[in-house]
């Protein structure tokens, strides 16, 4: 199925932030990568937001769900591509289908539950019936009222243009010409997901926490790379004893990886020497060491870790983000989706993940950690939301929105290293490389009219000095 092509209004000269359209040059000017300066309007402009839904979310690969959430034929989980609701359902063939949750008759939503199991999807309005792969298989009155001439083959549920999974994590894009998931993820994206699976096959624990914050989705993404705020924002969580900043932060051992199309990983990294020691341990020893403290940032991953994350990536104790909005945290024990709901509203969805074969004791600690650190009731997470909403709010006022954000930390002070396997990474201190990469990539996505242009004009993953 072909989506109608939606062009963009030409930018009127001197148009105001509130009403204007945006051309390539004005979009690229929103972030000055050399100066580490970001135009605040990226957080509040309504036209930019609409463009994001089209050029970032409909075009990128969006995380849908994990294999374990929908194990059986007919199991489904509702998710979003931007603001478009989709059904992620296990088809008869065992594959996952991603279908726009809207009937082709009058548009009614097929599924209204957040999750469930279905034999087929029957519309509550007139009873059109769709198979698990979206095919329209039943239309009441098809022969009598429709005289048998309704072409059902043209009226199936709209499928995402591409659906694919990596290590059990399903993604979808509305763009037929998007790169394959494998290519899209690239080394950095795969390293990120690999982090989750370093201890083997995983499953999602029942219960996705969902809440809404009055902030732009990008400030939440910026924050996941931000190990600078931990000491100050989360001081009270530290003093309450829920985490020990010193054990977690390692400000002078930070490992950053920047991937094509905007993916990045940032945060503490084991020094290579420490990794070398770990490499000498047996898998059993490593797992034993890890499981004794799952919330601990000392990631002593089994051999599988290095296979999935690379020899350098495996050192990461930080935070991957799969562009645009999938954060991997707690060393892979949780992922958090940030779903856009308008320029100043974001839904956060928290998925908690454990290795399938993890002992009950590990699972218990994992759940405890996930609940008490993150999510709306988590002692860390409580501190973040209002900083994000207040930062978003300060991009609205007439004078305040003329200002920029400052993203200068480490700018020009670091180098990308390439290891013997070709994996690129930066060993450094606390920095803002990943955030700059996020916004640089974001402007390129936003400025490109289609995938051909994005492919042609996006920045390659950085080499050399950054």
């Amino acid at each position, binding site marked *: 199925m072909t989506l109608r092509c939606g062009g963009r209004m030409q930018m009127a000269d001197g148009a105001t932030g509130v009403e204007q359209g945006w051309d390539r040059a004005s979009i690229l000017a929103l972030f000055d990568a050399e100066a580490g300066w970001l135009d605040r309007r990226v957080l509040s402009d309504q036209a930019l937001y609409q463009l994001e839904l089209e050029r970032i979310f409909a075009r990128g690969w969006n995380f849908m769900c994990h294999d374990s959430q929908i194990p059986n034929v007919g199991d489904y989980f509702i998710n979003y591509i931007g603001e478009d609701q989709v059904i992620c359902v296990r088809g008869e063939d065992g594959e996952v289908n991603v279908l726009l949750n809207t009937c082709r008759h009058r548009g009614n939503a097929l599924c209204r539950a957040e999750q469930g199991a279905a034999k087929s999807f029957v519309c509550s309005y007139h009873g059109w019936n769709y198979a698990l792969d979206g095919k329209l298989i039943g239309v009441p009155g098809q022969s009598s009222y429709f005289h048998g001439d309704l072409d059902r083959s043209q009226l199936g549920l709209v499928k995402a243009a591409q659906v694919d999974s990596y290590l059990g994590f399903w993604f979808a894009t509305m763009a037929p010409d998007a790169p394959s998931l494998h290519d899209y993820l690239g080394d950095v994206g795969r390293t990120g997901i690999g982090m989750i699976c370093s201890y083997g096959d995983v499953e999602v624990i*029942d*219960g996705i926490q969902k*809440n809404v914050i009055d902030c732009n989705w990008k400030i939440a993404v910026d924050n996941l790379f931000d190990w600078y705020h931990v000491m100050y*924002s989360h001081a*009270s969580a530290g003093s309450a004893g829920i985490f020990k900043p010193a054990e977690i932060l390692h400000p002078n051992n930070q490992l950053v990886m920047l991937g094509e199309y905007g993916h990045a990983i940032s945060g503490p990294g084991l020094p290579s020497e420490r990794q070398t020691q770990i490499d000498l341990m047996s898998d059993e020893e490593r797992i034993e060491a890890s499981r004794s403290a799952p919330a601990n940032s000392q990631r002593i991953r089994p051999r599988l870790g290095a296979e999935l994350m690379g020899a350098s990536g495996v050192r990461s104790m930080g935070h991957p983000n799969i562009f645009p909005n999938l954060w991997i945290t707690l060393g892979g024990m949780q992922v958090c989706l940030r779903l856009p709901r308008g320029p100043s509203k974001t839904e956060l969805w928290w998925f908690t993940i454990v290795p399938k074969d993890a002992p009950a004791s590990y699972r218990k600690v994992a759940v*405890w950690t996930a609940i008490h650190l993150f999510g709306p*009731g988590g002692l860390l997470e409580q501190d973040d939301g209002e900083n994000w909403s207040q930062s978003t709010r300060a991009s609205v006022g007439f004078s305040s929105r003329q200002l920029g954000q400052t993203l200068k930390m480490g700018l020009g002070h670091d180098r990308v290293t390439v290891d013997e396997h070709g994996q690129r990474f930066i060993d450094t201190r606390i920095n803002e490389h990943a955030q700059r990469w996020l916004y640089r990539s974001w402007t390129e996505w936003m400025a490109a009219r289609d995938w051909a242009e994005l492919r042609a004009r996006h920045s390659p993953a950085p080499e050399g000095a950054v």
Partner: protein
Amino acid sequence: MSALEVAAEAATAPAPLSLAERALLQFEVEQFLYAEAALLDARRYRDWLALIAEDIHYWMPIRRTVTNSDIEREFTKVGDMAFFDDDRAMLEMRVKKLEAGSAWSEDPPSRSRHFVSNVRILDVAGDEITLEAAFHLYRTRLNTEVDSWIGRRTDVLRREGESFRIARRHLFLDQTLIRATNMSTLF
């Protein structure tokens, strides 16, 4: 279930007590719950902690929008994910955080109001009283933020001298999507 049975279930559960005894117990329990709520609303978190039993289970599972056919999965189960799944140590940690001079997200502090309604004592067993209530936790922050959390809760109170301690609080929110920046307020 006949009307009589329902009524019986509703009105006579703690059987051995007379109507007057039950009414007095109800009064005691309600006054305790209101006093407890007032401590939280007055931000007297330490004093509130004093009402918490050593073995408390303070739990708020996640509610989901599910179909009727899937209704037994409406709430997550104990051991799966939740919004709160706290023991006393964890609650102490929450209070410690609120008391820390550096709890920026609660400075300026939130303003809360705990409405406790429809209190029903479901069981009296030894020194433990099981009750159910409807709650409405209303919170405002700054000049513009307004949150309402509404649902049902079941408490277990354990008699201790002239008063009670809270040995269980299970909170069943009505909302499936939390429409708030955080839940930094105690329920």
